[in-house]
């Protein structure tokens, strides 16, 4: 359908390059968005997708090359200019004002006006209600944005973009936190917009969604343009090959292991209002997946086990030692390690170097007398960087210059260096390119084979099914099902996650 659209692209990038210091985020990239067409942008993390989005949104200005609006070169001096030109963006991370009401968040800068140019709150709230009706959600426009779940925040972002009646709608991973139903509703709305002549740019790491929604796909790799082609006739494998530049034989190299003694025992763990009555065990050599929708309480369980948050009732036992509540130090001493969900905020100190980040969880082990031994720190970092095949310039480089996948390896190195008996990984491959993803899977598999107990939280269903010996499914803060590897299917896990199964 998009093929027959007007020959002039609504919004386009022509030979755009953009560098940040030494990192060249975009190199000579072109992209054409046509009215009435949904265009997918594919690529590993760090391929330059987000930079491209921010260039279209007016956040970044290209170092060279042009942004074209209806064929004419334009310069966006800021997000306001792009919005003026009819470009609406849904960013990967929701960007809401927590203290303002949901309706104000949607209409910030474009509030309906009444007499004397005042804001007409009644109309504003009514308009917001209408938008939510279209999306099929029951959010109250007058409640503050603070306290909304990630999924609801994303829905507000979507409503915000819709309210702009934009000519170009850019969506950077809008579906990551949404349930199947919400995704379906979103897609219906987007399809309707597309039919009304809106140009859509869609980014998702779920390839199925690209194939369902989009007509064309542009692929980036390492900041460079690889291909732009119709989606029709492409296979998943074709697309992956373009993204990573090679075939992937085994994305899920699961080794068969024999489960040993119980390493982590969680008994009736409860954090009021977050999760309740969570009990399970993880044995040495096992990979246990904790599945469920975003917001079901999985990460919160992991945080409570590790002592980041305080649990209100229940107990956590690691290798026979019962852990006190809210003490990461005690958890680490007992042999726990947690690779957290948010790499940039929780996993790494972005301003510190690779070696200092790797040493951070083991400052006690690096001591020589009262002082830190720099040699020990360097050895530890080099040792693990080599074992995990980290791609780096110097160990003294800031972790900020690494790609997402290599950053995740630094986080893993930091924790593996502490010699844990139980490793909790929260979304270990989120936002990681397919190549590194396979490496991380292989690593987890090897660790389990070495007798480490692995608890893996993941929203990536193929990953859960491919890697786990057992799958625990959470729903509404409780464990809804425990499914052995043999019985775990997409269907069985999803039905438990959505509360359809007992």
């Amino acid at each position: 359908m998009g093929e027959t659209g007007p020959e002039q692209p609504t919004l386009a990038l022509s030979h755009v390059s953009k560098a940040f210091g030494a990192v060249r985020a975009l190199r000579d990239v072109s992209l054409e968005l046509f009215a009435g067409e949904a265009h997918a942008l594919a690529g590993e993390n760090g391929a330059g997708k987000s930079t491209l989005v921010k260039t279209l949104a007016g956040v970044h200005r290209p170092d060279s090359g042009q942004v074209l609006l209806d064929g004419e070169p334009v310069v966006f001096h800021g997000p306001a200019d792009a919005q003026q030109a009819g470009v609406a963006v849904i960013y990967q991370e929701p960007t809401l004002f927590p203290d303002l009401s949901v309706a104000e968040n949607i209409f910030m800068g474009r509030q309906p006006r009444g007499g004397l140019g005042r804001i007409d709150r009644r109309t504003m709230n009514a308009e917001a209600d209408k938008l939510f009706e279209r999306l099929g959600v029951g959010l109250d426009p007058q409640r503050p944005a603070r306290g909304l779940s990630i999924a609801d925040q994303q829905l507000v972002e979507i409503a915000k973009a819709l309210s702009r009646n934009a000519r170009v709608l850019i969506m950077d991973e809008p579906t990551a936190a949404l349930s199947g139903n919400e995704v379906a509703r979103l897609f219906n709305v987007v399809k309707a917009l597309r039919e009304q002549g809106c140009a859509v740019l869609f980014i998702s790491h779920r390839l199925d969604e690209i194939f369902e929604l989009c007509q064309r796909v542009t692929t980036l790799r390492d900041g460079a343009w690889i291909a732009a082609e119709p989606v029709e006739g492409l296979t998943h494998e074709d697309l992956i090959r373009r993204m990573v530049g090679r075939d992937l034989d085994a994305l899920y190299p699961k080794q068969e292991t024999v489960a040993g003694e119980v390493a982590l025992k969680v008994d009736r763990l409860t954090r009021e209002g977050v999760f309740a009555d969570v009990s399970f065990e993880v044995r040495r050599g096992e990979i246990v997946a904790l599945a469920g929708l975003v917001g079901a309480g999985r990460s919160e369980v992991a945080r409570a086990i590790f002592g980041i948050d305080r649990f209100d009732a229940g107990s956590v036992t690691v290798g026979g030692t019962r852990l006190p509540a809210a003490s990461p130090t005690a958890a680490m001493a007992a042999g726990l390690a947690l690779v957290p969900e948010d790499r940039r905020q929780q996993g790494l100190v972005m301003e510190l170097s690779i070696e200092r980040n790797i040493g951070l969880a083991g400052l006690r082990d690096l001591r020589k007398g009262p002082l830190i031994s720099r040699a020990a720190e360097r050895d530890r970092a080099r040792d693990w960087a080599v074992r995990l095949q980290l791609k780096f310039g110097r160990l003294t480089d800031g972790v900020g210059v690494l790609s997402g996948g290599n950053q995740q390896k630094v986080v893993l190195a930091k924790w593996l260096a502490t010699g844990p008996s139980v490793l909790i990984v929260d979304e270990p491959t989120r936002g990681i390119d397919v190549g590194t993803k396979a490496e991380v899977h292989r690593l987890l598999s090897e660790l389990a084979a070495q007798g480490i107990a692995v608890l893996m939280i993941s929203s990536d269903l193929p990953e859960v099914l491919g890697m786990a010996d057992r799958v625990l499914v959470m729903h509404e803060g409780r464990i809804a099902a425990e499914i052995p590897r043999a019985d775990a299917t997409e269907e069985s896990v999803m039905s438990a996650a959505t509360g359809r199964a007992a």
Partner: protein
Amino acid sequence: MSETTSEAAPAQKASPGPDAPGPGTSRRGVGHLLRWDVLVTALLLVVFLGGSLTSPSFASAGNLSFALGDLGEIALIALAMTMLVVAAEVDLSVASVLGLSSALVGSLWDAGWSIETIIPLVIVVGAVCGLVNGLLVTRLGLPSLAVTIGTMALYRGLAYVVLGDRAIAEFPQQYASLAVDDVPGTPIPYPVALFVVLAVVTAIVLHSTGFGRSLFAIGSQEEAAFFAGIRVKRIKLVLFVLSGTIAAFAGVIFTLRYGSARADNGVGIELAVIAAVLIGGVDFDGGKGTLGGVIAGVLLIGLLRNLLMLNDVTTEIQSVVTGLLLIVSVLTPRLAAVIRQRRRLPAP
């Protein structure tokens, strides 16, 4: 408070920022010259040379010793403040703790207590003041800026409650001389000698121990530090207690040095301390800085004040100079970063 100022930061921080050491080896030399603590040290030399030329008495051992002694309290407090700012916190109440400590020394002495009893007691009070700051920051999660603005008023108010607007003088000579006299055989006053010892200890703690490493990690990314098992709250609490303790001790020295205990002693010293720390190249947003830089910053402020005084510049103008130095010290690195960024932008 500082978050607001980083309006363009999301874009910068998301990308490997301009400060990230890149492989641009050809510019490494320039980058080194642009290092702030090096600049400050150079500036220090310029002031020193300029001072020696314009004012003959400036470079004399007697004057320098006096200038250093005059700096004592600021320098001492700056040590604790450096650690706090590196951990992305700040303590504005230090001058008030100094005042409270001075008022207590005065009123207890007036009530007939012995100095030997007063000093430990006052230092404990200072530690408690710091503990209150620390508990409010760590237990309630309040911004240290707001907390210490509050305790700045509270502790100063308590100083007035203790001593009113009286001034207590006439401390026995043997104590006063401790705060003024030189270490035998050297031109170094006791407080300066104490500072040198503490500065060495602080430098080692900050740059070579796990505790110091933790401070930098907390300052640049507190959440990540917490997830790495660093006891963020406990460490911050320790820092605030330390800051209060040192401020109280500085209050004792201040009182004995001037031989006068007043509730308004040391008003505004927090400005000089923060100025010295920031001039020394510690990032107000935390995570960056060296103790060497801070010492250079302290000396710079001290020599500059001394020079202005020798040239009969009034104290009002001195405060203008300190204020300007403070602004320049935070402005310059940011402008330098912008310039560096501009220069790198036209990438091939």
